[in-house]
């Protein structure tokens, strides 16, 4: 148990050193759920962007199918998608947001595109399914 903790810490130190040397840590899907993995700013930004797009598309399809009406659901979507993104980087990945530009920088990643995607999906499904 102690050996594995030590080897993890050594691995993390080596990755951080590589980052200091200018090398970007390679991306693999296993690090998406690994709180010990080291993240490059661009890689993390991209992952958060796609999570937001997925949430936007899913919410749009769901809200259009039920259907739900009213501008309140736009606010609900914004809060929900931000909570998902926050939950991912703060609770699952446990990254220090100061290393990546603060909460605002991480939360605004892909926000506008996901908002328009959500509206598009919601409007299209609502119009096609119910009119």
């Amino acid at each position, binding site marked *: 148990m102690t050996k594995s903790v030590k080897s993890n810490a050594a691995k993390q130190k080596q990755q951080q050193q590589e980052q200091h040397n200018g090398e970007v840590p390679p991306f693999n899907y296993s690090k998406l759920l690994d709180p010990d993995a080291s993240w490059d*700013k*661009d890689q993390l*930004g*991209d992952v958060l*962007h796609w999570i937001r*797009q997925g949430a936007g598309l899913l919410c749009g399809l769901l*809200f*259009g199918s039920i*259907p*739900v*009406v*009213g*501008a309140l*659901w*736009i606010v609900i979507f914004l809060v929900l998608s931000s909570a998902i993104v926050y939950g991912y980087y703060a609770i699952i990945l446990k990254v220090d947001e100061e290393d990546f530009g603060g909460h605002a920088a991480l939360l605004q990643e892909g926000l*506008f*595109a996901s908002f*328009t*995607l959500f*509206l*598009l999906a*919601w*409007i*299209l499904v*609502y*119009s096609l399914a*119910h*009119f």
Partner: protein
Amino acid sequence: MKTVSETTTTVKKTKTKKKIDRVESSLKESTRDLSLSKFKSGAVVAVVLFVVFGLLNTLFEGKSVAKLPFHPITLVQKMSHRGISGDDATDCSMAFLYLLCSVSIRTNLQKFLGFSPPRGAANAGLFPMPDPKTN
């Protein structure tokens, strides 16, 4: 009186500084060339989009192409209710749907194919910032 080692260090520093200046000026030139070629392709894309928008406008003028599941604010209504008769604010015009498609699909496609501009590079290119290093 400077020792030999101090003189050598000074010479090395000057050489490094010259190298940095050379690399920076080469970077500036490359950035300028990149901006110029991006500007040319951007102009072609803009013309194509303009023609497509004009064509769609002609095809769907005055028609409601979708139903909005919410009442948009007055500012948004100017676009979403553009060219549509009647008072129903939930009637959606082609222009609004075109805008939504344009922003969402183009942004994500650029990101997916790797053509999105790097973060913080919005101001670089045609109008480079003045060099903060002044000697």
